[in-house]
C-alpha cells in the first residue's frame, strides 16, 4: 500500500474510533467544570455498553425490533444519568472523597454490568449494531468523503456534541452557573445559585454522556458485549479533559490525536514497518502523558475548586 492509501486508512478509521473517548470526555468535562472529578466514568461506560447492547440482543422481532439501537442508547443514557445521580449523592450531598467514590463507582458499574451480562446474556456475543450511513453527496467528495462522511450516524451526532457542549458551557446561563460552581462556589452561592443542584445536574448530564459513549462501543464499534469491553477508555477520557484544557474543542483535538495515534500504530504494524510492537502499542498513551506534562502550565484555566466538596457552613 502506498503512503497516501495508508494516510487515508488511518484517518477514515481514526475518526469513528475516537467517538467513545470524545463523548465520554465531553461528559466528564461537565462534571469537572462543576468541580467534581468523576473517576467512575469507566464504570458508567460499562453499564452503558451493557444496557445499550441488551435491546439489540433480546428484541429480534416485533414493532420494536427496528428501533433496538435507539432504545439501547436511551437505556444507556438513562442508566448513566442514574449513576451520575448516585455519584452526586455520595460526593455532593455526603461530601465523600471524590477519588475514592469514583473508583468505587468504576468497580460498581463494571461489576454490575458483568454480573447482569452473565445472568441475562450468558457469554460473549455479538449484535447487528448500527450500520454505516453515508451522507448523500458529501460522502462522494474525494478523500474527505470517506474520512468524514461515510460512518454510522452516531459519529455525526457525536461530533455535533462538540459545538453543542461548547455553546452550553460558554453561551448559556446554565453553563455560566456550572463554571461558577466549579471555580468559586462560595461566590456563586452568594449570588443565589444553588451549588449542589447545579453540581447534581452536571453530574447527571456527564453520566448520561458516559452511558452514551459505552453504548457506542457495544452498538457501533465492537458490536458485541464483553465484561472488559471498555478496557480503560473511561480513564483515558478523564485524562483527555485535562488534555483539552476543559474546553470541548480541545477535548475533540485530544480524542482525535489519541485515536489517530492508535490507528497509526496499528497501521505501522500491519504495514510491516520494522518497529518493536511493544513501543507501537505504547505510543498513544505516551503521547497523552507527554502532552499532559506540557499542559500543567495551563492549570489555571481549569476549574480551581475541582475535587473539593462545597460546604456553605464552613469558614474560609
Amino acid at each position, binding site marked *: 500500500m502506498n503512503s497516501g492509501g495508508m494516510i487515508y486508512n488511518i484517518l477514515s478509521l481514526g475518526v469513528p474510533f475516537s467517538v467513545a473517548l470524545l463523548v465520554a470526555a465531553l461528559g466528564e468535562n461537565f462534571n469537572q467544570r462543576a468541580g467534581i472529578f468523576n473517576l467512575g466514568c469507566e464504570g458508567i461506560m460499562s453499564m452503558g455498553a451493557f444496557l445499550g447492547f441488551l435491546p439489540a440482543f433480546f428484541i429480534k422481532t416485533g414493532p420494536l425490533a427496528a428501533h433496538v439501537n435507539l432504545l439501547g442508547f436511551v437505556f444507556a443514557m438513562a442508566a448513566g444519568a442514574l449513576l451520575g445521580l448516585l455519584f452526586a449523592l455520595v460526593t455532593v450531598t455526603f461530601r465523600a472523597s471524590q477519588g475514592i467514590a469514583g473508583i468505587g463507582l468504576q468497580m460498581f458499574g463494571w461489576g454490575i454490568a458483568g454480573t447482569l451480562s452473565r445472568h441475562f446474556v450468558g457469554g460473549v456475543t*455479538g449484535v447487528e449494531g448500527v450500520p454505516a450511513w453515508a451522507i448523500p453527496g458529501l460522502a462522494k467528495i474525494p478523500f474527505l468523503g470517506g474520512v468524514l462522511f461515510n460512518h454510522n450516524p452516531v459519529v455525526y451526532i457525536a461530533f455535533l456534541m462538540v459545538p453543542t457542549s461548547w455553546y452550553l458551557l460558554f453561551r448559556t446561563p446554565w453553563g455560566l452557573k456550572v463554571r461558577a460552581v466549579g471555580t468559586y462556589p462560595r461566590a456563586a452561592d452568594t449570588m443565589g445559585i444553588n451549588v449542589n443542584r447545579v453540581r447534581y445536574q452536571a453530574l447527571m448530564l456527564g453520566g448520561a454522556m458516559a452511558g452514551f459513549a459505552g453504548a457506542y462501543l457495544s452498538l457501533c464499534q465492537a458490536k458485541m458485549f464483553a*465484561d*472488559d469491553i471498555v*478496557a480503560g*477508555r473511561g480513564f483515558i477520557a478523564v485524562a483527555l479533559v485535562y488534555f483539552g484544557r476543559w474546553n470541548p474543542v480541545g477535548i475533540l483535538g485530544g480524542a482525535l490525536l489519541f485515536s489517530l495515534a492508535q490507528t497509526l500504530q496499528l497501521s505501522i504494524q*500491519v504495514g510491516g514497518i520494522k518497529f518493536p*510492537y511493544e513501543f507501537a502499542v505504547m505510543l498513544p498513551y505516551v503521547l497523552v502523558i507527554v502532552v499532559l506534562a506540557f499542559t500543567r502550565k495551563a492549570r489555571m484555566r481549569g476549574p480551581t475548586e475541582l475535587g473539593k466538596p462545597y460546604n456553605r457552613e464552613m469558614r474560609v
Partner: protein
Amino acid sequence: MKRFLLATAATFAFVSGLLAAPRAKVRVALIVESTVDDKGWCQAMHDAIKVTQKKYGNALVEYSYSEKMKPVDAGSAARQYASKGFEIIICHGAQYKNLVLEMAEEFPKTSFAFGTSADIGPKNVFTYMPESEQTGYLNGIIAGLVTKANVIGNVGPVDGGDSARYNRGFYLGVKSVNPKADIKLAYTGSFGDFVKAAELAHTDIKAGADVLTGASQQATGALRAVAEYRDKNIWWVGQDTSQLAMSESFKVIAAASYDYTAIVEAIIAKREAKVLGGENLPLNFANGGFTYKFNEKVGPVLTPAVRKAVGAAEKDMKAGKLPIAWKEVKF
C-alpha cells in the same frame, strides 16, 4: 530425529497416564482472570474440568472455580482453596507463575498447575504448554489456499506464550502452500481488549487482507469486525471452535480449540500415582489436546483441496510425522 522420538515417547507416556481414574475423591479448583464462559481461553479449561468431572462422576471429582482473578487477588482465592483441602489448584495463565511458586512452598501437599509455560516447576507444580504451532499451521494452510488477494491478517495479542507459537505455526502453514502470501501480523498488546482487536481487524481489511485469524479471547472482537463485511469474500480461521456456534460463524471457515481434558486427567492420574508435580505436560494433536473442525455452512470457499491439505497435515501431526520448526521463525 532424536528429539522427535523423545517427544513421541513423552506423548505416549503422557497418554498412558490418562487411564488411571481416581480411587478417592479429588477436589479441583480453577482460578481464571476472565470468566468461564468467555468462549476462549478460560472456558476451554473450565469445560475440560467439567468433562472430567462428568467422566469420573461428582462423587469422585469435586470442582470449584473463581473468576476475574487478577494476579494480586488470586493469592487470597488460592490460599482459601488450599486451606480447605483442595488437592489440585489450577491457576490458568502464565501471569500466575509467581503466585503458584509462592503457594507451592506454603502448601507442599497440594498440587498446583499453571500454564502456558514450558518451565519444569517445583515437585508440587505442574506446568502445561499447548503446542499451538500445530493448530496455527492448519489454519495457515487454509488461509494460504483461500486468499485471493494474497494478503492475510493476523490479530495477535502479545508475542508470548502459546500465541507466539500459534503465530509462527500459522506463518509456516501459509508459506507451505502459498510462499508469496503477505502475512500482516500485528499485536494489540492485550488478551482481552475486544474493541482494539476489532480496530486491528478493520485496519488489516483496509490494508487488503481477505483472510484473518487471531488467538486469545479478544479474537472474538476481530471476528465480529470481519462479520461486518457480510457480502464480501473476507474470511476467518479461528483458534476456538466455540466461534463455529456464534452468529458470526458464517465467516469462519474452520476453527481449532484446546481440549485440556488430557491435562486435567493427567494431573489427577499422576497425583494418584503420588506424583504431585515437577512435570511439564504438552497439549497437541497426538494426545487429543486439540480438536479441529471445518464449518460446513460456509459454502464453496471450503474446497476439496483445502480439506485434503488440512486433513493430510493433521494426520501427519497425529502420527508425529510433521514437526513444525516454529522457533526458527523470526518476525
